[in-house]
C-alpha cells in the first residue's frame, strides 16, 4: 500500500510524484501507456510567465518558473532559460503589451521596434515593437517527466516512488464515501490518497469516481522543420495574438505564431487551438496558417523544410484555470489536471503545492482559485 497513487505519468503526474516522494510519502504512479505518452509528448515545452494575466495563474507560473530552474540542476533533460519575446504588429498592440507587462509585475524589458533585430536578427521588418521576458524558458517535457520520476525514485529511498506503465485505472476503491485506492486492469491498488493527473483525460478519470470535471480537449498542431545548421531563432518568439487566443473561450479555430529553435536544430512552429474532440485527423488549412504566420514573422524560414507535424489535446477548462486540490465530493481524491496549454510550465508548482497539502503543510499559494469545488 502506498500513501499516494498518482494517475498519469505525464509531466504533471511526474511532478506530483516527485514532490510527494521528496516530502517522505510513498508514491505509486500509474499510466495506461508509457511515460509522457499523452499531452506531455505533444507539446512545445513552454515554461511561460509572459502570457499570463495577473492573478492566481500568474502566481502559479512564477512559483513554477523558480522550481523548474531548481529541477533543471539535476540535469538529464534540456532546459533552456532563453527568454520570450512577444512582438506587436501595430502600435496599438504594442501599447497593450506594455500595459499588460506593467500590470504583471514580472521581470521584462520593453523593446522598441528599432531594437527588435538586436534580439532576433531574422525577424521581419515593420513590426511595432515587443516585450522581452527573460524568465520564459523551454524544457524537453518528455525527458523532463521521465527524469523527474527517475530522480524521485533514486533520491528519496527505495520504494518511495514507483512507476507502473501499462496499467489502466478502471474504477475507484471506496470505503464509504472515501476513496481508498483504484481498481485497475492489473488488480486493485490501495492508497491513502489518489491524485488524478490524467491531463486531458482527467474528466474521464473523475467520472470513474462519480464526480464531474468539465475538462475538454483543445487540439493544437505543431510544425517541425528540418534541423537547421545555424540557429536562426534565439528566443521563444510569439505574437500578441497568442495571449488573447490562450484566454479565448471560442471553440473555433484560432491560430497565432509561436516560433522557436530547439537544441536539435529544428524549429518548432505553433500554435493552433480548436475544440473538435479527440480527432487526430491532420487539418491542412491549419498547417498552412501556421506556416504563413511563421514566415510572416521570420521570412528566412520560407525556404526551410517542414519534415513533420504533430497534434495534441490540451486539457481545457471553461475558466482556463487548472484544477488543483482535494475534491470535496470524493474525499481522498485530489485533482491535478486541466492546465490547458500551460501544463509543462505549471507542473512543478502543481506538484509542490499538492505535496504540501498531502503532507499536511500550509501551501505556499492559496489553492482556492483552483479548487475542484468550483464545479460542485
Amino acid at each position, binding site marked *: 500500500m502506498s500513501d499516494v497513487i498518482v494517475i498519469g505519468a505525464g509531466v504533471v503526474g511526474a511532478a506530483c510524484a516527485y514532490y510527494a516522494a521528496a516530502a517522505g510519502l510513498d508514491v505509486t504512479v500509474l499510466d495506461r501507456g508509457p511515460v509522457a505518452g499523452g499531452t506531455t509528448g505533444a507539446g512545445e515545452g513552454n515554461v511561460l510567465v509572459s502570457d499570463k494575466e495577473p492573478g492566481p495563474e500568474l502566481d502559479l507560473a512564477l512559483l513554477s518558473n523558480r522550481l523548474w530552474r531548481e529541477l533543471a540542476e539535476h540535469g538529464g533533460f534540456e532546459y533552456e532559460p532563453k527568454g520570450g519575446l512577444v512582438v506587436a504588429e501595430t502600435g496599438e498592440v504594442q501599447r497593450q503589451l506594455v500595459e499588460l507587462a506593467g500590470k504583471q509585475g514580472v521581470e521584462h524589458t520593453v523593446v522598441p521596434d528599432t531594437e527588435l533585430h538586436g534580439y532576433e536578427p531574422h525577424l521581419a521588418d515593420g513590426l511595432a515593437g515587443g516585450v522581452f521576458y527573460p524568465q520564459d524558458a523551454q524544457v524537453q517535457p518528455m525527458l523532463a517527466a521521465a527524469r523527474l520520476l527517475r530522480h524521485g525514485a533514486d533520491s528519496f529511498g527505495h520504494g518511495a516512488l514507483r512507476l507502473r506503465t501499462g496499467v489502466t485505472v478502471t474504477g475507484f476503491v471506496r470505503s464509504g464515501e472515501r476513496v481508498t485506492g483504484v481498481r485497475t486492469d492489473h488488480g486493485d491498488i490501495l492508497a491513502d490518497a489518489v491524485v488524478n493527473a490524467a491531463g486531458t483525460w482527467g474528466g474521464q478519470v473523475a467520472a470513474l469516481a462519480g464526480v464531474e470535471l468539465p475538462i475538454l480537449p483543445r487540439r493544437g498542431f505543431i510544425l517541425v522543420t528540418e534541423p537547421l545548421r545555424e540557429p536562426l531563432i534565439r528566443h521563444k518568439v510569439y505574437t500578441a495574438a497568442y495571449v488573447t487566443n490562450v484566454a479565448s473561450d471560442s471553440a473555433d479555430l484560432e491560430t497565432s505564431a509561436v516560433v522557436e529553435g530547439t537544441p536539435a536544430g529544428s524549429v518548432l512552429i505553433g500554435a493552433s487551438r480548436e475544440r473538435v474532440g479527440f480527432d487526430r485527423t491532420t487539418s491542412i488549412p491549419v498547417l498552412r496558417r501556421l506556416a504563413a504566420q511563421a514566415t510572416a514573422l521570420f521570412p528566412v524560414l520560407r525556404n526551410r*523544410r517542414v519534415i513533420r507535424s504533430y497534434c495534441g489535446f490540451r486539457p481545457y477548462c471553461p475558466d482556463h484555470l487548472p484544477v488543483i486540490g482535494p475534491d470535496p465530493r470524493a474525499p481522498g481524491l485530489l485533482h491535478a489536471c486541466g492546465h490547458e496549454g500551460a501544463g509543462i510550465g505549471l507542473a512543478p508548482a502543481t506538484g509542490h503545492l499538492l505535496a504540501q497539502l498531502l503532507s499536511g503543510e500550509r501551501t505556499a499559494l492559496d489553492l482556492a482559485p483552483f479548487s475542484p469545488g468550483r464545479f460542485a
Partner: protein
Amino acid sequence: MTGYDLVVVGGGPAGVAGALSAAQAGLRVALVDAGPRLGGQYFRHRAGSLPSGRGADRFVRQCRALRTRAELLLDHKVWAVEQGEDSVTVHVMAGQEERPFTLACRSLLIATGAHDRPLPFPGWDLPGVLTAGGAQALLKGEGVPAGRRVVVSGTGPFLLPVAAGLAKAGVSVAGVFEANGPLGLARHPLLAAGKAGEALGYGAALAGHRVPYRTRHAVVAAHGSSRVTHVTVARLDAEWRVLSSRTVECDAVAVGYGFVPQIDLAVQLGCATTHSADGSPVVDVDEGQRTSVASVYAAGEPTGVGGAELAELEGRTAGLTIAHDLASGEGGDPVPGVLRRRGERLRAFARALQEAYPVQPGWQDWLHDDTLVCRCEEVPVSRIREAMDLGATDARSIKLLARPGMGWCQGRICGYAVSCLAGERPQAPRRPIAQPITLGCLERIEDEQPH
C-alpha cells in the same frame, strides 16, 4: 464535380497497371510519381534507356498505352492526401521548383511501393555501406556500381538480383551472405515455388562470376576510417547469434533485410492496417483492393511485399474494381476469376517467402553501446536502452525520449529496428507530412486552384 475519376500515386508496376485498366474502362485518370520516369523501384532505368528484367517488355507496352490515355505527372511529389465530402484531395509539389497544387479525384489508388528495411550494425553509417535497394537503384538508375569490390548481405531473395546485377556490371562481388536458410541456393524457395528459371538464372549468373553464396552468414560489422575498407562476416546460428567470424576486404557493402511498405498516405486517410507475415504494417484491403475508407484503394507493396508480378496484378484488379465502383457497382464481379486465382497463388508464394526469410532477434547482439540506430539524429543503442529504462515501453515513447526517427528520414530507416528493440511489432507510421515541404510552399497551397 471537377477533377479526375482516379488519381494513382506511384508509377511502378502496380500504379501503371491500375491506371491503365481504369483508363481503358473510360475513366479520367492521372498518375503521379516523384521520379522522372515510370518504373518505380523494380523497373528503374536510366534516361534514354528502357527498363530491363522479367516482365519489362510488358511494362513498356503498358506505359506506352498509358501515355495516350492518362495524364502523367512525373517529378511530382505527393506530400498529403485529404478526404473531402465527395472527393479526395491530393496535395502535390511539382518539379524542381516544387510548385504546390492540388488534384481532386473521385477515387485514389495508393501504389507507393516499399523501401529498404536495413538493420543497424557497427559501422553501418560508414560511407560505402548502402542498402541493397540503394545499390540496385544506383546501378539501374544511374549506371553507377556501388564499388569495385562489393559484399552483399542480409536476408531474402532480393539479394540475388542485386548481386547478379553488380556482377554483370563487372563488379567483383566478394560474397552474398544470407543470414537465413541452412539449405543454400540449391534449395532456394524460389525453386520450390516453381520459379526455377528465375532462381537458376541468378544462381547461374553468380556461379558464372564465381560469387560465393553463403547461408547462415551475415555482415555483422563494417570497418574503415573515412569509408568502409573491410567487413566482419559471421557464421550465425538459427537465431542469428554469432558463432565465428572472419574479415573480408571490400570497398562497398549492400545490405538488405526485406522491405517496408510505404503506407503513409493510407494512414493519413485513416485506412485500416494489418500486419503481413514479415511483421510490416500494411494496408488492409478486400479482394477488389478496396481499403476500409470509401473511394480509397491500394495495390502492390503497400498491401504486403510480394514483388512486381503480384503488384501488377493487384494494380489491374484495383483499376477494374474502381471502374466498377464508379459505375455504381453494376455488372457483377469486375475481376475475372482467373486473375483472382493467380493473385491467390502469388500471395501465398509471397507469404511463404516472408516466412522463409524472417528477421531473427540475434542481430541485436551485433550492436555495441555506441552503434547508431538512428543516423539522422545520431542516436546510439545506449540511449534507446536508457529511454526504455526510464519508462518508454514502445517505439513512439522511445522516440519522444531519445529522438530516433525525429530527423530527416522520419524513421523510415530506423523505425523497424527501434520497434524490434522495443520488443513490439512495428506500428503503422503516422506521418501527416509524407514529403518534406518548404514553409514557403506550405503557406501558398490554398492560392493554387485545383488542377
